[in-house]
């Protein structure tokens, strides 16, 4: 495959936590503009997988390449990869001592050294995109869970990443707020953003994903298009998993 169209490339990636083998020989390629959903039972390693992509966890075997940059012991590789990726966490991880606007402008001002006024313009643009510009001067504690997660999405977008990583973005939300976040993510996908999303929301996978990856016990068990994945699962474990959640 031509490297220039590959956003993420994992070859034989391994990870241990102590003696526990969390990721076993992961081989995955994500093309630019592709939307990939990763699902699987708890403990299957899907969060570990996505956290290895932007080096929040360090992989211990095999190769990982993001946008042509290989992730190794060189600190510069980590910095470059983190500039290209944006991450949205299960528990939002907004900075509680800063306002919504300050949350979004912090990284552009201090990392990209953009002027404050310009950073605020960018931030307001993305806050409008996630449909909460009126809360710009509030503190995270004053917003609902769904609003906080949308702020988190805007915050990640303000750094202009080419790849967005979502680590179970709706798992910590009350049911009535899940839809607003999923709609935001779907509109992002509609704009052509490369996305890797760990989620249990199968409706989202069916309608938005280009491919669905099923993981179990640290291994990738099955990868397929959503149609094929949900109607004709090929592995026993996939079938067992789908039976439990659908």
């Amino acid at each position, binding site marked *: 495959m031509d490297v220039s169209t590959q956003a993420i490339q994992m070859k034989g990636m391994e990870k241990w936590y102590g003696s526990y083998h969390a990721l076993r020989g992961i081989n995955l390629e994500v093309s630019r503009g592709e939307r990939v959903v990763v699902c699987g039972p708890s403990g299957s390693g899907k969060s570990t997988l996505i956290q290895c992509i932007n080096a929040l966890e360090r992989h211990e075997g095999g190769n990982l390449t993001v946008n042509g940059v290989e992730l190794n*012991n*060189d*600190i*510069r590789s*980590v910095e470059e990869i983190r500039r290209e990726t944006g991450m949205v966490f299960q528990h939002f991880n907004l900075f509680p001592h800063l306002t919504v606007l300050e949350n979004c402008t912090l990284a552009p001002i201090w990392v990209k050294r953009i002027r404050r006024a310009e950073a605020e313009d960018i931030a307001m643009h993305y806050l409008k995109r996630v449909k909460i510009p009126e809360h710009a001067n509030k503190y995270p504690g004053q917003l609902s869970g769904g609003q906080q997660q949308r702020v988190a999405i805007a915050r990640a977008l303000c750094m202009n990443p080419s790849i967005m990583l979502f680590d179970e973005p709706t798992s910590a939300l009350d049911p009535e707020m899940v839809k607003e976040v999923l709609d935001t993510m779907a509109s992002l996908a509609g704009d052509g953003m490369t996305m890797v999303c760990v989620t249990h929301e199968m409706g989202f996978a069916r309608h938005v994903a280009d491919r669905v990856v099923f993981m179990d016990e640290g291994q990738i068990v099955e990868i397929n298009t959503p149609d094929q994945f949900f109607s004709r699962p090929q592995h026993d474990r996939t079938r067992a998993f789908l039976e439990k959640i659908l």
Partner: protein
Amino acid sequence: MFKAFWFNRRLRSYALQVLLVGAFLSGCIWLFINAQQNLAARGITAGFQFFGQPARFPISESVIDYTPEDSFGHAFKVGLVNTLFIASIVIVAATVLGLGLALARRSAHPLLKGCASTYIEVARNIPLVVQLLFWYSLVTINLPTAREALTPIPQVFLTLRGLFFPKLELSGEISLLWWAVLASITLVTLAFIVQKRERIVEGKAPPFIRISMIVSGGLLLLAWLVGGVSARWDVPKLEGFNFVGGSALTPEFLSLMVGLVIYSTAFDGEVIRSGIDSVAKGQWEAGEALGLSKGKILQLIVFPQSLRVIIPPMTSQYLSITKNTTLALAVGYPDIAFVVATTINQTGQAVEGILILMTVFLSISLAISIFMNWYNRRISSI
């Protein structure tokens, strides 16, 4: 090539660590070399040889015997025993009184609660040195002279030279007697434990306590007679301007003890009180619903649970009390810090002296840390 080195995550971490340790060690070595040069210039030999030499300075009071002809090593021992002696007394007194203070502060009685709160605020917001000097001034200036001594209890005299009280002098084969005392204490304690357990398990228990007391009495009498022990009260008598005979507590000791107890009780009381307060209110409610009195609830239900919250800060309080005894320097009580300071004055062996002082306290604090870790592991497994 340097760039590859600098930006490599692991190599950078190693390099910085090596640099840090190197800087720290070279700093220490530089200080050490300077110290050697300066000491040599003053003709002072490093090392602990001076331990064997006679100390030649007086120590005004000590638990173990001491004369100025004794060695420096013995003087340090005396100081250490003095420190531990007063620390133990203060720790026990402050804990017991602290419990009473905690209960007073939690009571509904407005006068009691108000007095307790005021006492705590005053004792905690004034430096310990000021309090010690205050008590020392009271004891040495405002107490009467020997001729007009205060006599709160007959034969006990309170003057500005100290507190004098009768001493019990035993002669004869007293070692037998001490063994008998030890055996009696062990017997009676065992009897208490066993009888209580038997009563809870079986409902009724044979009168172990009574039996043990009779046996102990017999043991003591036997030891007394066999050893040919005779006792005599050595009563302090006024001769001239001072008292002679009996036992005495110096004003330095008295003021240090009173000051430390008053200061530490305030802190200990707050630790105990916050421990009792930390137990969920539902525990009190459950106990009352079962018909237990407030006292019994405290004793059987709340207090054992509060121990978990009390013991960690309490042990650091005990360490604090031990460290605070070094303020004996301000009132002149000869604790280990005083002995070290005097030794440094006399011999110039500053490094060795301060090293001893710090090692003593580090050992005590290490012992307390080990105990704390053991205790934490024990309760977290429950």
